[in-house]
């Protein structure tokens, strides 16, 4: 058996960079104990001193316009899976290991590709762009390939390395797929490399480090073989790109579209099918979703064939707002021969719950379009509310009970007459003042005396006098 390991140490960053139009300092951030930390930093960010483990505000202190993307483990796993689809062209025996490694049993494919080195070259050449740095190693066992790939991913990025099991003894124990505490214990017995470790009697070792450790060593050393994995391709294709910075013209979409199409091509090649139709979906800044379906007169599978058609259509498609996310999906496939099937399912019945209504509304209007009102604990009225996910807002008791339901988007300045505000006619002040003087911390301080006022038609208004300027403003309307 011959195993290849493709190890992608910065996969999450790769995804961010693929969605980016122009080079800029970027990081992937994670939340750890309520702190925002840098998980990966691209070269431009690292150049300015950003390193993984740093907090985001600190990194922002170093790089003024740092672009930050939240770490998305699901997307990362998805990308790894897609890479698995891509690798399907080389072997059906593929396994994802963790979030960053693909293990391929290629022993059975050697003949097809004319040996290990040509195969390695093909892998290197055909690996979709934008997944650098990566480690590529060949070894007789899966765990050995993995260990060696991790050990060399940074130092020999992008190079194909071939190892026999004889190269294991020289490796440091730090690359073992075991607990850190187990590694510390090994070092404390002078076992810094695999050489003395592998020489130890397994029974004695199991007693000290556990049977699991020894099972792992056996797998590493080829003393036992794991079952051969079988890869299955999903029934349809869908891939998307999030943009770090929104794209605002159609031409700039071409590059990410090409990227998605090349991922589609890998899928199609692996399945030996072609597509009669595909669809681009775009999520826009104003939370609209735009759909650009593309019907092909003949089923196609190569980027080179599809891209010119896309280019042609790009001019006609309308783009009302800048794009945040681009998705490509294909649901119908034809074997490179012929055939057709409908994957569409009819919608379910009419009887729907509140949540289903929200879901339905979201599906109809776009997820970002539906929200409810929430309260925020802030004395300043204009900061006292927010829009929230329906059903997710928390109940909050406002210390003041007499607050209007309607708040003007902007307080409206009122004329004053004889010290009283005028709205149509002079208002009668019923209650007040309630003084609100706070908000010094975010440069939006207010210093106001609020009153409940009555119009001559009986309507109650919420007005205030700005204390520094002594000007009157209308801020809210009571419902009575």
């Amino acid at each position: 058996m011959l195993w290849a390991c493709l190890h992608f140490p910065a996969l999450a960053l790769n995804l961010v960079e693929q969605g980016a139009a122009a080079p800029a300092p970027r990081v992937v951030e994670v939340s750890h104990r309520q702190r925002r930390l840098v998980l990966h930093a691209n070269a431009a960010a690292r150049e300015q001193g950003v390193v993984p483990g740093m907090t985001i505000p600190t990194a922002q202190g170093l790089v003024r316009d740092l672009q930050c993307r939240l770490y998305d483990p699901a997307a990362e796993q998805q990308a790894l899976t897609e890479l698995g689809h891509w690798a399907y062209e080389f072997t059906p025996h593929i396994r994802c290991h963790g979030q960053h490694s693909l293990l391929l049993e290629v022993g059975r494919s050697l003949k097809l590709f004319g040996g290990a080195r040509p195969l390695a070259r093909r892998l290197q050449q055909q690996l979709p762009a934008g997944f650098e740095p990566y480690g590529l190693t060949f070894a007789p066992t899966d765990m050995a390939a993995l260990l060696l790939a991790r050990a060399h991913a940074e130092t020999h990025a992008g190079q194909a390395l071939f190892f026999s099991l004889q190269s294991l003894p020289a490796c440091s124990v730090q690359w073992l797929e075991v607990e850190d505490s187990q590694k510390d214990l090994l070092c404390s017995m002078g076992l810094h490399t695999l050489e003395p470790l592998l020489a130890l009697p397994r029974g004695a070792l199991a007693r000290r480090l556990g049977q699991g450790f020894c099972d792992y060593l056996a797998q590493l050393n080829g003393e036992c073989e794991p079952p051969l994995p079988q890869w299955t391709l999903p029934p349809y294709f869908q891939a998307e790109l999030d943009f770090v910075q929104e794209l605002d013209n159609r031409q700039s979409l071409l590059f990410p579209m090409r990227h998605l199409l090349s991922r589609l091509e890998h899928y199609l090649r692996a399945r030996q099918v072609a597509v009669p139709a595909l669809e681009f979906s775009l999520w826009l800044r104003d939370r609209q979703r735009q759909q650009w379906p593309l019907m092909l007169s003949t089923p196609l599978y190569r980027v080179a064939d599809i891209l010119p058609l896309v280019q042609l259509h790009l001019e006609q498609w309308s783009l009302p707002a800048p794009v945040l996310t681009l998705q490509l999906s294909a649901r119908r496939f034809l074997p490179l021969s012929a055939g057709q099937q409908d994957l569409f399912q009819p919608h379910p019945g009419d009887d729907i719950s509140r949540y289903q209504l929200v879901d339905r509304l979201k599906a109809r209007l776009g997820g970002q379009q539906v929200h409810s009102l929430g309260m925020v604990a802030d004395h300043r009225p204009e900061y006292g509310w927010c829009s929230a996910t329906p059903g997710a807002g928390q109940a909050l008791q406002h210390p003041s009970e007499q607050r209007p339901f309607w708040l003007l988007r902007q307080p409206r300045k009122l004329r004053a007459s004889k010290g009283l505000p005028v709205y149509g006619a002079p208002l009668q002040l019923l209650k007040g003042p309630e003084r609100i003087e706070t908000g010094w911390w975010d440069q939006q301080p207010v210093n106001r005396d609020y009153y409940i006022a009555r119009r001559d038609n009986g309507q109650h208004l919420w007005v205030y006098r700005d204390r520094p300027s002594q000007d009157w403003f209308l801020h809210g309307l009571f419902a009575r």
Partner: protein
Amino acid sequence: MDYSELHCFSNFSFLRGASHPEELVQQAAALGYGALAITDECSVAGVVRAHVATRAHPIKLIVGADMVTEEQLHLVVLAPTREAYGQLCTLITRARSRSEKGHYQLRVKDLYPATDACLFIWLPTAGQCLQPNEYCQALLAATAERLWIGLENNLRQADADLCRQRQWLAQQLGRPVVACGNVHCHVPQRQPLQDIVTAIRLNTHVQSAGFQLHANRETSLRPVPELAQYFPAEALRQTQVISQRCTFSLTELRYEYPREVVPPGHSAQSWLRQLVAAGAQQRWPAGVPEKVQQQLDKELTLIHELAYEYYFLTVYDIVQFARSQRILCQGRGSAANSAVCFCLFITEVDPARSNLLFERFISKERNEPPDIDVDFEHERREEVIQFIYRKYSRQRAALTATLITYRIKSAIRDVGKAMGFDRTLVDQLAKSIAWWDKQEQLPQRLQELGIDVSNPRIQQFKSLVDTLLGFPRHLSQHVGGFIIAAGPLDQLVPIENAAMAERTVVQWDKNDIEALGLMKVDVLALGMLSAIRKCFDLLAPLRGQRWTLATLPAEDPATYHMLQQGDSIGVFQVESRAQMAMLPRLKPACFYDLVIEVAIVRPGPIQGDMVHPYLRRRRQLEPVNYASPEVEQVLKRTLGVPIFQEQVIELAMVAAGFSAGEADQLRRAMAAWKRKGQLRQYEEKLARGLLERGYEQSFARRIISQIRGFGEYGFPESHAASFALLVYASAWLKCHEPAAFCCALLNSQPMGFYSPSQLIQDVKRHGVAVRPVDVQHSQWDHGLEPGAVQPPGQPAIRLGMRLVKNLSRAGAEALVRARQQATFANMGDLQRRGQLSKRDMDALAHANAFASLSPHRFQARWEAQGLQRESPLLQQAHQAEPRVTLAPPSEADNLQEDYHSLGLTLGRHPMALLRDHPALQGYKRHQDLYALGHRRFVRIAGLVTGRQRPGTATGVVFITLEDETGNSNIVVWRDQVERFRAAVVHGRLLKIKGVVEREGDVIHVIAGQIEDGSELLGEMATRSRDFH
């Protein structure tokens, strides 16, 4: 319209109030209030400060407290009379004693009848107004006509309605309403800080604190005309009614000494005389020298005139207990070094042995309260404390509080957090500032961290930090200041629980207690006393003689010779880098020289520029002259240069005409130097006084700058003398019994300036053999073993298992017990008989303690991991395990493991191992420096074991580099610090190119270029102690 504020929080309502009591007093006086009540949250901790402030800003001060009962009744309790004050203190004590530190629990039924002299303001909720429940009824019953209903109007929306409801309730109950300000700060501008402390209290940031923040700035002290708009006239008038009923002032407090220290049939005077006479008999069995007897008579007369007998008897009583338990102790302080204290065994400083003038330690004119601090062995002080509690009960004895206040570091941290700044950034900032920089450098540091200083948030941050500085955070227990009274203490001051279990503290700190003229005894802990006692214990069986502090041979030339070489590692007080550099210059040759040595290497004398003049005069390089005979009298013993705090005070009296009272105020102002501005008025007065008395302008300037330098850091002669005694004792032991002394120091860790590693290297350099931790030989403690050939008569030190990381004491003791039956045959035998856990076995293997049972530590660790606690039968079954032979560790492996497990190595020094490394070619060792001349260029490398940035030397960093031959002192000037900042701050191994600076035997290297060589160390665990 007159107004008195009756509901006002100071910042002693921790993280609620945002103004100092002094600020509130000053502002209330400026606004023309009739009176001001300080009503902190179940506390009177701030009232003494307010009381003192009323001297400068006259206004009537009312003592009170804000409390919310368990039944949700919000009350302001005021003390109109001394009786009511006692009741208030008792009430607070009761409420506090039910809760852990910082909290309280009060119940309505506590009020009745224990508070029948107090006045109450009730701040009912809307619900309570509409439907008074049974607890409200209980409150009404308990308070009767001493209850007011408080009205509050801070222009919050609910205020107007609530005021109406409360007025309605008051009418129903037939009780008067009274206006309350609900004051949280003295001026509106303080509101942002109030928001910040609220956020800190809630552990959130201001952006998220929401409705917990005040909606506006109306909770400050407001002008009376404004208040007249917000409150009914009657409510304002009632503030005056209450204020007029309040006649109590803190000046009424009187203190009574505990009476049981005098046995029946004796007066305090006769008992003290009897004890002193008996002590003198013991001290001088051949008869008390005439001079000493005169001294005793004089002191006893003075003590009687000032009625201090009880004080001396109380201290005697405590010391007597310690002596009976063989706990070593030593008194210090203004009254401690008297012949009376020598005869009472409070001090071992022998009046006949040194030339101290004792009478200056107690002075009738100065009218200072007597001050005796007693140091005890640090590991046994708790026994003394428990004795005090036992003897006087917790009702009558309590620790004084120490006010923990915001320092620059904590202020940055908390304000940064409360403003929602990134934590790492705040950490970084706080760390580097506390370490390195003065507050003025804040903007520069911010800029260096890439922060835009012109950003308004940063401006706010800076100003909030400045204001928060010095704010009280919480009351902690004083390290050992006891207040002991004749009656229940809680009539005098509330007592509350400390963080430590079984500890209680009063709500006042030592300044408060001093301001009110109360008495305290400091029961302190001193590591060196533990070490000296342990050394005496080690020597008793070895030499057949039990030393005491008093019997050590006096004025031993060999001891002084050793100190003159700067050979002082481990010696009390004079072991620091700066002291070590001073010793060869000052060349102490008698006891009084040690007193000066202790006092002179302090920021005070250094900043006041007293060190060099003194040294020059001592070496007769410049003439000693005095501005007048009066000055000569004060300064003669220090060659005309003021070195001790007492001298400065005396100078103010004899040369500038200060009265005793003024001099005492000057002393306090010096102690409280940080509260700016106070010294200035004295400076002017001093200058005037000196010039009027014919002293020259230059003399006046010098004295004033010396006083300024003393400020915070002045060291009193009375303390220096007691310390000097311990310097001498420890130096004598180091000189004549280096092995026992080092062993005792190691057994008293943590203490002192040096790590065990440094102490052991030093003792090895003095020829003492040090043997490794070994399961066949070591005890838990370090011990002495016979057998070393050199130096003759010196035993060897056997390291104890207490040094081994992760080893349990119980495990080690079980091992020793098992060993007493028979030595161990192998590791399995040891583990079986000692029933040691796997973790303990592993820790011992890590420390290489199995060297006598196993080929090497890797093998031992392998075996330790394989051992299991099980029956012998199963054990045998496992012996079938194949024999495994692991490779032995290299020297570097051993070194790393040694440092990791023990923090030190008995093998070669890391630098010795690295000597041949190409990167260190051409680098000298410490020892090589002595062969180099002054101003010679040198390259030197070593491990960083010390890093100091003295406040007295602006921008300079002193680094101690350790190598296989000793410690070198590196001076890094400010420019170099900036240029090589990363290396200076973080480097563990430094390579330095510089110039030798040499004065006699004192050698420094002035760094020119600094390179971080830490990578050479790999993962070696060197520990660098960073002193700030």
